[in-house]
């Protein structure tokens, strides 16, 4: 395949082979003995749009189903290169333009086979599989369509994809939050399916997550012993961001922005007190926003306690009770990163996440090689904490021994 580079000159490159592309990650895993450590990835993706004709067959409303399926046959691609489409940086991140060239077994589920390739390369045992484009479901103005697309995807994922992964993929399913009754219906329908460890608020939305209408849904998730996660994203159309002219700047601000918004409402309205047994996970906003928000909210809480009547401790204390996915981990200032780890109690609250195959993925060695972490913290962050949270068993005897050694499994 040819890629266009260097002022238009075509550069021939080999077809994509994920195992070969990630050979250095496999080497890192071997050097560090990752196969003896249970590694749980709490945020990975597939490109579900490649299977849209398949999963959209599960749309139940016949009018919306006809509309969606018909839209696939028009053959009119979008020629405007939206910023969300520039994740590959003009082809520099080669697995995007080469993705279709990778060969898989037609008899197997392609996304599972691709997933196992990169998981094996990274040394990842389990991975939480999320969609890509559907993370923007909250931007839909049609609540019915949001519900139908989430419903179709969640059915397809739990019936066609997760069962083929030998138990190595799990998921937290996207909730169509625009209509609270639909969200509750999803929890009731999918909450007990194998591989479902929780539900997901796709964070790119501005509705108030503390609204009374959502309490039944949160209660339903909590009662089932599942987790609630917030997965952030970007929205170049967000009025606040419309002056940003680069993917990098929309990305830098957008991912933390939506989680900051929802975290602020979640904590300040006492949702942690109302649902004390509900594990809440904040995904793909990096970590640098956390010290900022902890200090801002604690300051406001100190001066204006009458506006936080439900809180029994400081906002940052509640934030330290919640969980955080590590990626994209800001690693350009080790002093700042170490401070962040201390402020969020990373040893017990941080969860390794790769975000693979997206452009800014993190390998497990990004955690393992941090100079300020104890051995126990490394084991916990890479998988020990997540194994307890999601009831994921060790896959080898060595992993079992390490989980017991660091208090993540009873002997």
């Amino acid at each position, binding site marked *: 395949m040819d890629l266009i580079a*260097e002022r238009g*000159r075509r550069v021939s490159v080999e077809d994509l082979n994920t195992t070969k592309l990630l050979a*250095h990650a496999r080497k890192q895993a071997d050097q560090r003995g990752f196969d003896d450590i249970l590694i749980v990835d709490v945020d990975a993706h597939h490109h579900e749009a490649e299977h849209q004709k398949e999963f959209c067959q599960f749309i139940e409303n016949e009018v919306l189903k006809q509309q969606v399926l018909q839209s696939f046959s028009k053959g009119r691609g979008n020629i405007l290169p939206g910023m969300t489409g520039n994740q590959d940086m*003009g082809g520099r991140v080669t*697995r995007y333009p080469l993705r279709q060239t990778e060969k898989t077994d037609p008899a197997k589920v392609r996304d599972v086979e691709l997933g196992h390739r990169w998981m094996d390369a990274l040394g990842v045992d389990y991975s939480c599989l999320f969609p890509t484009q559907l993370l923007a479901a909250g931007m839909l103005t049609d609540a019915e369509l949001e519900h139908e697309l989430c419903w179709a995807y969640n059915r397809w994922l739990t019936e066609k994809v997760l069962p083929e992964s030998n138990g190595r993929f799990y998921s937290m399913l996207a909730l169509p939050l625009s209509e609270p009754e639909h969200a509750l219906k999803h929890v009731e329908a999918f909450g007990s399916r194998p591989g479902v460890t929780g539900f997901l608020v796709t964070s790119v939305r501005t509705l108030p997550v503390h609204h009374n209408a959502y309490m039944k849904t949160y209660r339903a998730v909590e009662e089932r012993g599942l987790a609630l996660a917030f997965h952030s994203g970007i929205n170049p159309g967000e009025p606040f961001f419309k002056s940003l002219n680069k993917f990098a700047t929309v990305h830098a601000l957008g991912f933390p922005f939506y989680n900051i918004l929802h975290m602020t409402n979640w904590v300040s309205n006492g949702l942690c007190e109302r649902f004390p047994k509900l594990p809440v996970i904040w995904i793909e906003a990096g970590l640098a926003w956390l010290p900022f928000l902890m200090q801002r909210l604690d300051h406001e809480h100190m001066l204006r306690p009458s506006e936080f009547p439900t809180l029994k401790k400081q906002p940052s204390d509640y934030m330290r009770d919640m969980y955080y996915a590590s990626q994209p981990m800001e690693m350009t200032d080790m002093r700042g990163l170490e401070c962040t780890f201390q402020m969020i109690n990373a040893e017990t609250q941080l969860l390794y996440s790769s975000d693979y195959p997206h*452009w800014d993925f993190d*390998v497990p*060695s990004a955690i393992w090689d941090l100079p300020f972490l104890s051995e126990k913290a490394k084991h916990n962050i890479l998988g020990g904490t997540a194994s307890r949270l999601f009831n994921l068993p060790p896959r080898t005897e060595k992993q079992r021994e390490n989980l017991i050694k660091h208090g993540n499994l009873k002997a």
Partner: protein
Amino acid sequence: MAEVFIARKGVFKDGDRQIVHAGDTEIGVFNHQGVYFAYSNICIHQGGPSCEGLTIARVEEKIMPDMTSRGLYFSHTGMHFACPWHGVEYDIATGECVSNRKLKLRKYDVIERGDDLYVIV
């Protein structure tokens, strides 16, 4: 020090790239406009194959004397190569990471012996 064979000069043309191995050491060798450059194939960011991605001209911005911007363009002199994992870019002439030039890939010497090219490891 060992000399590791890269390629015959005649077949290693301008714009070509070759990855050579010397034990556990991986080295990317570039022929850029007739000049040979060789760098470690381990990205300083997260260890990706730094030399195995696109070779692509440096992006510059045209800033006019009145300080207005007239857009982006590809440099006609500066050439980069990008790690395919995350797109981290390096200056092909120096091996410096272009977003932080204090960081650079280890550089290796390339020598010619007759029609053959070798990298010194």
